[in-house]
């Protein structure tokens, strides 16, 4: 049997892609995830592939229930993503997409923290090209912010892993916990990638700027990799329940008033992550199964939603709700697929979200976290509200914008159809998904009581939407920028100065000038000494070089002799 890390198949397989053309490239790129999938399927549990570095064993292929389920879904996601992006001619998108997914898969099978870290950074570096490929100034800026934050997460992970290595002498990636400082640092690193509250804004900042195809891939890997890592290292950490509850609840408020539909999806992505984080925090077998299952289902339907919005963006050039409407007439298939995705994320019975989200809710109820359960239920209603209704409604129905774009390209439709089939398939036959979850499942999602509760919840949420729309209370879609916590670093510097203006009044100009002048002078000084003609960069006369030699000689002599006396 071949025992080779499936992630490396994708990463290495990406290398020849720039040299391939036409159908050969298509077949090659589709064959990679399929080959990796077959390989993964054949692997039994255990550690299969180790290399030694740093005097440590690096386990590159730790296969167990948890890593396997994430491996499967990541491979499905890249397969769908490849189909969806077949029409794209920009080669860097294909390559970075494959490397990115390969890195994420590699990270999932990493059995130790060092190789996890390497893959962790590789996902950051390879994915940023999906954002930069938009080639707009906004995308460039957002991509750079994204990269800095992602690499920052890696640096935290590195710091944490070195501390843990130092304390325990082991770099194995097992349960970490927050008892040690290193554990807290690593939790922060995971938290950035998992978009914990206040660490989340890179997601809403960067994803909407990526290319139509890039966002589909971005939505699948980075955050779910973090969910996997949390489930591995921090299962049962009480704090995560509360973090997750906040995560599930607060983004939906932003989503309601957001105009950019891809950003709405980014907020709902954040909200769905909250469910998974709650599941990990609860940490029972049912809850962890629920988190894994929800991640599995979520990747597919979120990709489906981003695909449908990507198709709209591809054809119309915008995803602003205020600009769209009435597209169902010319893009009927996309409309249907979008609605399937919306139904899945809203957890309608017979759709995939229902069978996974309910596991987490049940786990919360079993463990007596009633308040959190209530928050999650509210978030469920809310997610239906903005993702289930708002996305399809404003894009495809609502008032007719007069746009009559062509139906999405065939490869996009195929990808969306496959994703839709998976959404429905998982919803109708949940036992298939349950069979590959890390723990044994004896959970039955389809009881009549449960189905009824969910349907009631959703329909009354829809009722609320209808009533609010018809009474005109629903907030109109406005072109706007909504502040989020990235405001802290994008605006706070100037805001502090403005605050000075108001409170200190006349002192402002003095302070402002002082600050600006100081900064300017610092840079000038730096430039004067270090610039091309600065004293440190200048070509020195040979004599003064020799002077330095003499000075150093005297210094050393003096220092050595001092020791004798």
């Amino acid at each position, binding site marked *: 049997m071949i025992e080779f890390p499936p992630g490396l198949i994708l990463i290495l397989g990406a290398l020849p892609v720039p040299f391939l053309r036409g159908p050969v490239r298509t077949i090659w790129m589709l064959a990679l995830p399929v080959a990796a999938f077959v390989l993964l399927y054949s692997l039994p549990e255990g550690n299969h592939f180790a290399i030694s570095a740093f005097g440590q064993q690096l386990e590159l292929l730790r296969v167990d229930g948890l890593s396997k389920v994430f491996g499967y879904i990541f491979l499905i996601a890249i397969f769908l993503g490849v189909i969806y992006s077949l029409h794209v001619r920009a080669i860097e998108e294909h390559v970075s997409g494959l490397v990115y997914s390969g890195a994420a898969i590699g990270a999932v099978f990493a059995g130790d923290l060092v190789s996890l870290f390497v893959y962790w950074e590789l996902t950051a570096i390879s994915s940023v090209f999906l954002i930069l490929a938009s*080639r707009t100034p906004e995308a460039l800026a957002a991509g750079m912010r994204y990269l800095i934050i992602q690499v920052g997460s890696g640096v935290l992970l590195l710091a944490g892993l070195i501390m843990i290595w130092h304390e325990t002498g082991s770099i194995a990636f097992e349960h970490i916990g927050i008892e040690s400082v290193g554990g807290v640092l690593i939790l922060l690193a995971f938290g950035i990638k998992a978009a914990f509250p206040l660490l989340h804004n890179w997601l809403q900042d960067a994803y909407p700027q990526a290319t139509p195809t890039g966002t589909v891939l971005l939505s699948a890997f980075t955050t779910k990799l973090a969910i996997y890592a949390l489930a591995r290292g921090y299962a049962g950490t009480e704090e995560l329940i509360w973090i997750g509850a906040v995560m599930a609840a607060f983004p939906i408020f932003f989503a309601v008033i957001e105009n950019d539909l891809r950003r709405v999806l980014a907020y709902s992505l954040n909200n769905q992550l909250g469910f998974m984080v709650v599941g990990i925090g609860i940490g029972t077998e049912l809850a962890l199964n629920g988190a894994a299952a929800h991640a599995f289902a979520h990747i597919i339907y979120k990709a489906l939603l981003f695909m449908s919005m990507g198709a709209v963006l591809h054809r119309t050039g915008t995803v602003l709700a205020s600009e769209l409407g009435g597209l169902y007439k*010319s893009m009927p298939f996309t409309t249907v697929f979008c609605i399937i995705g919306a139904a899945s994320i809203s957890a309608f019975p017979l759709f995939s979200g229902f069978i996974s989200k309910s596991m987490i809710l049940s786990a919360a109820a079993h463990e007596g976290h009633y308040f959190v359960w209530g928050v999650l*239920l509210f978030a469920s209603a*809310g997610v239906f509200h903005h993702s289930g209704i708002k996305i399809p409604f404003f894009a495809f129905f609502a008032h*007719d914008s007069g746009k009559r774009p062509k139906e999405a390209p065939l490869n996009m439709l195929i990808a969306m159809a496959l994703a839709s089939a998976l959404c429905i398939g998982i919803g109708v036959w949940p036992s298939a998904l349950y069979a590959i979850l890390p723990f044994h499942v004896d959970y039955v999602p389809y009881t009549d*009581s449960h189905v009824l509760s969910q349907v009631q919840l959703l329909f009354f949420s829809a*009722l609320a939407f209808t009533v609010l729309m018809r009474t005109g209370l629903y907030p109109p879609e*406005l072109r706007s*920028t909504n502040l989020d916590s990235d405001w802290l670093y994008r*605006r706070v510097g100037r805001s502090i100065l403005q605050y000075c203006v108001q409170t200190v009044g006349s002192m402002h100009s003095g302070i402002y000038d002082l600050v600006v002048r100081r900064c300017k002078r610092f840079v000038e000084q730096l430039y004067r000494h270090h610039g091309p003609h600065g004293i440190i960069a200048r070509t020195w006369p040979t004599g003064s070089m020799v002077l330095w030699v003499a000075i150093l000689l005297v210094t050393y002599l003096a220092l050595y002799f001092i020791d004798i006396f």
Partner: protein
Amino acid sequence: MREEQLKPDNAAVPAQKGWLERKENVTKIAWALYVVCAILVLLDFLIHRHAEMGFDGNFGFYGAYGFIGSVFLVLVAKYGLRPIVKRSEDYYDD
């Protein structure tokens, strides 16, 4: 690359409105929704609910929760959040 893909096809706006855009049809759909909601609440009588926490077994709990939750969500977002965070579209550009 992208410029080519982004040809908005604005031609030919049909004079006549689609079925979904006509006001009377929208009203019909709304009424259908009201009826479905009513039926769903009534189903509570027929289907025995095994309440896990006690309070979730009450009549109409999920419906009320969904409705009130959603209204709360929208109103807070509209009157609470939007005034605080809304800025002009090119806020970060200057």
